[in-house]
């Protein structure tokens, strides 16, 4: 096994997912299978091949530092579940 139930619980917590015990079991098996499949890549000989972070052989896409119009408060808040005051997203109280 590449992955155990503890790993799955940890990742689920980071993703804010509440998994039932039997879901945890299923997920553990499935994630292990996925990782096992990806592990096949290790069979490839990558000797002498440069590491890459991207699939496309390109670099450097820029924009100039010029202001473009924003979309406006109304549109920006269009999908907000709740709006606070004039123009803020409202969320459950955050305690620091």
């Amino acid at each position, binding site marked *: 096994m590449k992955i155990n139930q503890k790993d799955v619980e940890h990742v689920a917590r980071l993703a804010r997912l509440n998994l039932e015990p039997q879901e945890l079991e299923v997920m553990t098996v499935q994630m292990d299978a996925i990782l096992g499949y990806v592990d096949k890549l290790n069979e490839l000989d990558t000797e002498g091949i440069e590491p890459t972070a991207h*699939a496309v052989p390109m670099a*450097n896409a820029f*924009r*100039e530092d010029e*202001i473009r119009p924003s979309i406006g408060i109304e549109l*920006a808040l269009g999908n907000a579940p709740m709006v*606070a005051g004039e123009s803020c997203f*409202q969320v*459950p109280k955050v305690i620091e």
Partner: protein
Amino acid sequence: MNSRYEVVIGLEVHVQLTTKTKIFCGCSTRFGQAPNSQTCPVCLGLPGALPVLNHKVVDYAIKAGLATNCQIAPHSIFARKNYFYPDLPKGYQISQFELPICERGWLDIELEGSEKKRIGITRIHMEEDAGKLLHADGQSSSVDLNRACTPLLEVVSEPDMRTADEAIAYLKQLHQIVVYLGICDGNLEEGSFRCDANVSIRPWGQKELGTRAELKNLNSFRFIKQAIEYEVERQAELLDDGGKVVQETRLFDADKGVSRSMRGKEEAHDYRYFPDPDLLPLKVSEDWIDQVRSTLPELPQAKLQRYQQEFGLPAYDAGVLSAEKPVAEYFETLVALHDQPKICSNWVMSEVLGALKDKGIDIVDCPVTPAMLAGILKRIADSTISGKIAKQVFDGIWSTGKSADQIIEEQGLKQVTDTGAIEAIVNEVIAANPGQFEELKGGKDKLMGFFVGQVMKASKGKANPEMVNQLLKKKLSA
């Protein structure tokens, strides 16, 4: 500070860049606008929106790297730092993790009375800022995403500092540099220059670092010093009592002068960084670096050296004049017009900076320009006016905007250099104070100052003090 332990401090500074637009979209970065008025699908994190890198952010990062002796990476990439927080719309922050744009730099700090010390800079990377949480009372918080996606540089130091004073010296120098470079407005209170301090202690001689606490919310140099000193004491007491320091983030409360733990964020520290597939790798050519290098201004440290070597100024003067770029520019313009650096330095430091401070005016708006001030200094040099009268001329220029010569002419401030006229006054003063004059003659040298003063007063400050002195001496030996 506690002397039983060695203190180890490393600093992370977030430098907010002064670009007009955000790092990955064209929204304005202007401060103080209506909440969420400066947002678009990219900085709101809406599905399908793609970030595009602001060229100027890279220019600024290279500038900062060169100015802090870093190596500029020919190849760097952006990464996603994953965590959930309501001010982070995408659920991840675009940052750099592996392959940041600048690495392995340093700054030399110098504390009064001690040797120069080199503080290492581990890395400088580019990233986007989060939004702002407004803590309304009651059951909810409000989110303003205007600041989301604002460009930041994170400057990470090596744990090379051993006292709060060293930390402050490093921070002040870094602050001075980014402001000089024109890449940051340097406003600590508005959060343009934010500092987190990693503080740990260890018994003297121990090799391994102690467990560190990360201090946040330090928005003035004074608070940073307070917070570090408080933290050192807190950790020392823990260790003294046989306890252990826990690795945690602590929030400094400047009002109470204490810090408190931000527990509960512990688990969130698993950020699962991975390369952001939305952003192409960044390649920086030698040409690009050279081009940015050619735009670097002379930095404050270099000016400080040059003012001492080229102009022969004392270290103190050089420090005051080079601390802020506009002051340095004023001084250099003045010296170019009037080639007497020490006299120029005295005038800028006392009269100009003093008057500006009094009136709360910025030096770029100073009503007495370097050219006007040079006009005054020329008239002192050619003995048209005395140094004392010159201050009156300075005030005159300040309030009227006229030239030195106009003020001198209009107010009749020209120094009296006519021997006959001065001699007449000297005679009057001697006649009025016969007793003192006899004492002076008898060897009570202290009275010389009194007589010079009386003559100057009688001439309304216009007599040439040098000549007054000579004439008095002549009278004594007569």
